[in-house]
């Protein structure tokens, strides 16, 4: 088996490589058959890049996203995020890695309904014992401010619109200041106006805060917000589209 080094080189587009997949496959048993949603995939994503993954259902987009986020482990291959080979980590280590390095944004927000917006955003920070209560509160307030929901801190998810819920989820994803943000169809359940707000935020995190963002989407308009779009089909990369402009695309 080939052993790769951590991504220290630059990708063909001149960016420092932040995510490097080499020969990554994922298989699992479904009944009596073995399903392979991803097969021998190679991919480099630069630091601070905003990448969109597109493709039909079952093409392996979410599987790849879950692997990059450390939600799942590849069956074969190596998957480096920054200096860490996620393929070598066990479940508990992946959990600890996610807490520090990755923020996950879900299509249906996945907020805890019994907690307020503030408490939802605070959840990841409670894992960091070194933070004082005051520091935590200050970080939560800053994150909510960044997504424009400082005045909704005490509201529960049921008291927020879909767009506001997704922005709270984004605040929760960024509050620990992770290097990587992954988003699984973050605009899939939103109206156009809310979708625009969410995509603007993601672009801002990529361009201003150098967050590496990997977003799965079915929406070509949403994908246009990314700097690069990859198309997957049957677990293989089939096409990539490079957006050259750094200006936000009209959504």
């Amino acid at each position: 088996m080939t052993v790769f080094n951590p991504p220290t080189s630059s990708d063909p587009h001149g960016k420092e490589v932040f995510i490097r997949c080499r020969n990554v496959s994922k298989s699992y048993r479904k009944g009596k058959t073995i399903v392979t949603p991803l097969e021998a995939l190679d991919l480099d994503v630069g630091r601070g890049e905003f990448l969109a993954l597109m493709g039909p259902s079952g093409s392996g987009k979410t599987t790849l996203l879950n692997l990059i986020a450390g939600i799942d482990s590849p069956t074969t291959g190596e998957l480096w995020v920054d200096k860490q080979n996620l393929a070598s980590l066990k479940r508990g280590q992946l959990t600890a890695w996610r807490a520090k390095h990755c923020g996950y944004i879900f299509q249906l927000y996945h907020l805890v309904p019994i907690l307020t917006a503030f408490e939802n955003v605070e959840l990841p920070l409670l894992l960091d014992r070194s933070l004082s209560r005051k520091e935590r509160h200050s970080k939560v307030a800053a994150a909510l401010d960044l997504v424009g929901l400082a005045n909704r801190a005490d509201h529960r998810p049921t008291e927020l619109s879909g767009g506001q819920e997704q922005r709270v989820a984004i605040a929760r994803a960024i509050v620990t200041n992770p290097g990587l943000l992954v988003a699984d169809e973050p605009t899939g359940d939103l109206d156009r106006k809310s979708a625009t707000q969410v995509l603007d935020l993601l672009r801002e995190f990529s361009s201003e805060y150098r967050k590496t963002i990997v977003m799965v989407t079915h929406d070509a308009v949403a994908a246009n917000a990314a700097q690069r779009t990859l198309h997957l089909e049957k677990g293989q990369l089939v096409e990539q589209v490079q957006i050259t402009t750094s200006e936000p695309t009209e959504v």
Partner: protein
Amino acid sequence: MLPISYAIRNLLRDPGRLLQKVGGAGIVVFLVFAAGAFNQGMHRILSASGSPQNVILLGAGSEESVERSEVPIQAETLAAAGIQDITTRLGVSAVSGEVHYMAEVIFPTGHKAQALLRGVTPTAFEVHRSVRILKGKYPKPGEVLVGKLAHHNLGVSAEMLSPGQTIKFEGQSFTVAGIFTAPGTVMESELWFDRNDLMTLTQREQLSCVVVRLESPESYASADLFSKQRLDLELSAIRESDYYAKLSAFYAPIRTMTWLTAALIAAGAIFGGLNMQYAAFASRIRELATLQAIGYSRPAIYLSLVEESLLATLLGTLLAVAMVLIFLEGQTLNFSMGVFRLTLSGEIALAGLLTGLLLGIIGSITPAIRCLGTSLPSALRS
């Protein structure tokens, strides 16, 4: 670690389910309290009724029941002279020849009840040292001294057995001369008559037993030797504490049944609770997966789910304690030997608390393992 507030708020997520869980746990723990109080009450009264310093001389072959026993009347004086180390006070030897008799008594209202009657002489107080007259005086012929809890056993009000009231036995009327207490013993539910009255009315010429109080439990050998030497009296010496221990063993199956019933109900509650808890956790599989995606470990989430379940069952335990204090504490229960009080002792409280803890832990671990067993990608999409 998830904050405890998360577990508390989850409890309040579905008030109906919370009510079921708290109520279910409360009933089970209440049953454990009740079974414990019943068993301990019965065991205590039988244990406290016998002193290891007292020896009962019974008719040989009637060691199981003092009521069936027959002892020659002269055994009382012979025992006083023949047994060494008998306690004496003011020159009176602690030897009490007694008649024990179960019979029906009739109240002026016409109410009839079976009562345990004891025919005694004043030396009974030398032998049964816990007996104290609370009201009134020692009975003369035609009078009766009643135990403090006798009215419970006879199913009448305390007033109907207060000094000055009358009861009928074998067609003769007896006036209540006083009320005595003997805390925690079966004697408190007895009626004490003048021994001659009882012997005359029951046409007995023999005693039921002779009770002797010794200087120390070790002096039992002297009483045992006396019973074996005086073959003509056909006696059997038995420590009073052993006599009541045997009676206690007689009631063991009843006590076992109460524990078994409580255990079966608790087991049923655990199985029912498992289903309910699984339904509660299963509806939150995606939320639990989200917590894992954020970075909370599975053990941390297990712990939070167990905390949540424990909080509910401990609330149930508190409810059970309240129910015990309202409905059970201090209540008296009758059994053939007398009356005992139900009390929530430290041991029973601990047993109830442990039951609450077990209900919470066992009732949540399996559902939590099942709900967190789903793979994370699948759970996030559920």
